[in-house]
């Protein structure tokens, strides 16, 4: 024992002896109180469901574009977003300091499955991209031009995102801000009072504050302060403006502002969405063109959750322990490397990346549910749940190259877990769960196995009541 320990012990004693009298035995609310915690998560699940149901329905019924018979014009939702990025960098190896602006104009033909994004950067460069299929899961993308945005960074550490990177066209509000990214409903807390966005539009203000720390190249730990604000149209629930501010004293201060300056339904010439003169950027196969695969019932190998996809009951020991258990007990990944989103708060929903020894990777969203513990609320990309003839549940499987079979676990609204197996080798298509109504699906988990029975991918989400 040394002087420091003695002083620390005395400090703790001083604090402990200042404790107030214990509270009276409290009344407690009925279990329904938990709903207030699950609400946002259910909203997330419902949001994901809306996306995937839309996607599958489009694949099954393939509606055409809405065109005016007289003019031949296409009805689209047109959106203009102005983005400003201000970076003050005093770190070593600064990249992209100063102010950048970016204007994104998007035309979305949801019925016809055509989406165009025209990005104009402050240096005058233009990047033009057209996606076909689904906004979130395009089957083909075409592009021309180059991005002129330099994302601010300190060395290899990016301090903001490029909204025009990646395969997807940016469409700012539901149904498609991003199916994998929880938005203000899940992450933000409403700030009381009257607010307006930077253009003066009245708005509800949701805010998320995260205080964390980073480690510099020399091993020095420094504090990071992040604030995300969403200015939301009270009537529509659409985000009018989103700001992200990230500060590390003495190192950097970055502010990204995204303002939706126009969002309307209009009619355009179909040529606006033509891919002529564009280079094909990517072509994928959505794996579902008209082929039905009837799944075979099997004994469930696990029990899905009631308040989360898994586990049942929830895990109390925290996000990392839960992720480890999921990797081992559900995926069979016994040596998975587990990485928690470093930006997530200790008690906040957290994306966790699992990488097994063979290089397969999976992201899961783990979330605290009050004092019940932690649960997993999304696994991989949202699972495509749809409706087959007779109301049977159908699933648009992911295109997983190594997979020969898919194992589907479903928890129904009564909490019972059922399972099916489907052969997906060389046969992309829609998996149908015979005699099981889509409306009965409460929780869904699809795992994909290779020829050796090893799980190589998974997806899952929550749907109905």
């Amino acid at each position, binding site marked *: 024992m040394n*002087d*420091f*320990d003695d*002083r*620390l*012990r005395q*400090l*703790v*004693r*001083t*604090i*402990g002896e*200042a*404790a*107030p*009298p*214990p*509270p*009276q*035995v*409290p*009344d*407690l*609310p*009925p*279990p*329904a*109180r*938990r709903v207030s915690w699950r609400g946002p998560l259910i909203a997330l699940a419902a949001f994901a469901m809306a996306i995937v149901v839309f996607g599958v329905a489009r694949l099954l019924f393939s509606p055409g574009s809405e065109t005016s018979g007289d003019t031949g014009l296409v009805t689209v939702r047109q959106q203009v977003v102005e983005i400003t990025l201000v970076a003050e960098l005093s770190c070593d190896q600064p990249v992209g300091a100063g102010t950048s602006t970016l204007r994104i104009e998007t035309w979305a033909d949801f019925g016809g499955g055509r989406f165009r994004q025209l990005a104009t950067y402050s240096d005058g460069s233009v990047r033009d991209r057209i996606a076909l299929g689904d906004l979130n899961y395009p089957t083909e993308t075409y592009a021309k031009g180059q991005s002129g945005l330099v994302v601010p960074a300190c060395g290899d550490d990016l301090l903001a995102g490029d909204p025009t990177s990646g395969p997807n066209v940016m469409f700012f509000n539901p149904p498609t801000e991003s199916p994998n990214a929880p938005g203000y409903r899940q992450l933000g*807390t409403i*700030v009381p009072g009257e607010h307006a966005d930077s253009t003066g539009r009245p708005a509800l203000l949701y*805010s*998320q*504050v995260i*205080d964390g720390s980073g480690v510099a190249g020399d091993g020095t730990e420094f*504090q990071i*302060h992040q*604030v995300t604000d969403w200015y939301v149209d009270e009537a529509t629930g659409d985000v009018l403006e989103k700001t992200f501010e990230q*500060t590390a*004293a003495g190192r950097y201060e970055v502010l990204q502002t995204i303002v939706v300056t126009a969002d309307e339904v209009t009619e355009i010439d179909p040529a606006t969405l033509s891919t002529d003169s564009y280079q094909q950027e990517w072509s994928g196969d959505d794996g579902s063109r008209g082929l039905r695969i009837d799944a075979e019932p099997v004994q469930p190998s696990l029990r899905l959750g009631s308040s989360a996809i898994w586990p049942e*009951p*929830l895990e*109390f*020991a*925290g996000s990392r*322990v839960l992720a480890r258990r999921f990797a081992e007990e559900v995926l069979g990944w016994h040596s998975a490397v587990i990485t928690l989103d470093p930006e997530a*708060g*200790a*008690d*906040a929903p957290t994306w966790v990346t699992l990488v097994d020894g063979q290089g397969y990777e999976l992201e899961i969203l783990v979330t*605290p549910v*009050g*004092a*019940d*513990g932690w649960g997993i609320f999304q696994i991989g990309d949202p699972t495509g749940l749809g409706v087959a003839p007779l109301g049977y549940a159908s699933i648009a499987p992911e295109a997983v190259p190594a997979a020969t079979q898919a194992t589907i676990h479903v928890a129904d609204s009564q909490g019972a877990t059922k399972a099916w197996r489907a052969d997906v080798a060389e046969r992309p298509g829609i998996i149908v769960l015979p005699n099981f109504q889509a409306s009965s699906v409460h929780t869904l988990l699809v795992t994909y196995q290779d020829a050796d029975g090893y799980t190589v991918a998974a997806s899952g989400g929550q749907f109905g009541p």
Partner: protein
Amino acid sequence: MSASGGVGGYLGLMVVMDETSADLFSRHAAELTRFATGLVGPSEAADVVADAMARVVASRVWERASNPRALMFRAVLFEARMFHRAHRRRFSREARVSQREAFEMPEIEPEVAAAVARLSPQQRAVVFLTYWDDLDARTVAVLCGVSEGTVRKQLGRARKKLREVLT
């Protein structure tokens, strides 16, 4: 969640804690309140404990908990984290500064209080349990719901932060 509203903030349907839960709470209320004081300071400790108990007893894990004392400690730690998060958010929105909230105790020198304020709730928890009751890392791990390695790591980090102001 209200950061300081206590149980008085919950209106509408209320049920009274059953006798077993009430006995358990009464038995451990003092040490839980002391623990909460180490996490959030004396002015908020009682509310944090009350909120934590209301939350944990309403949860489904409560009735089948094999170690209800540990569960109560974890619930208080969880509630303290929520308190810090809400407090930081409010502080940030109102003051627009990035420093952490003060750990307000007149009995403690300001620089020491500032150092305590810079500890995470988990670091405060392991320091408090280690130095108040002389608990070993394994016991602290059980009470906090983390691994022994995490306890040692967090204790080491906390000691490093506090050493600057206590030596």
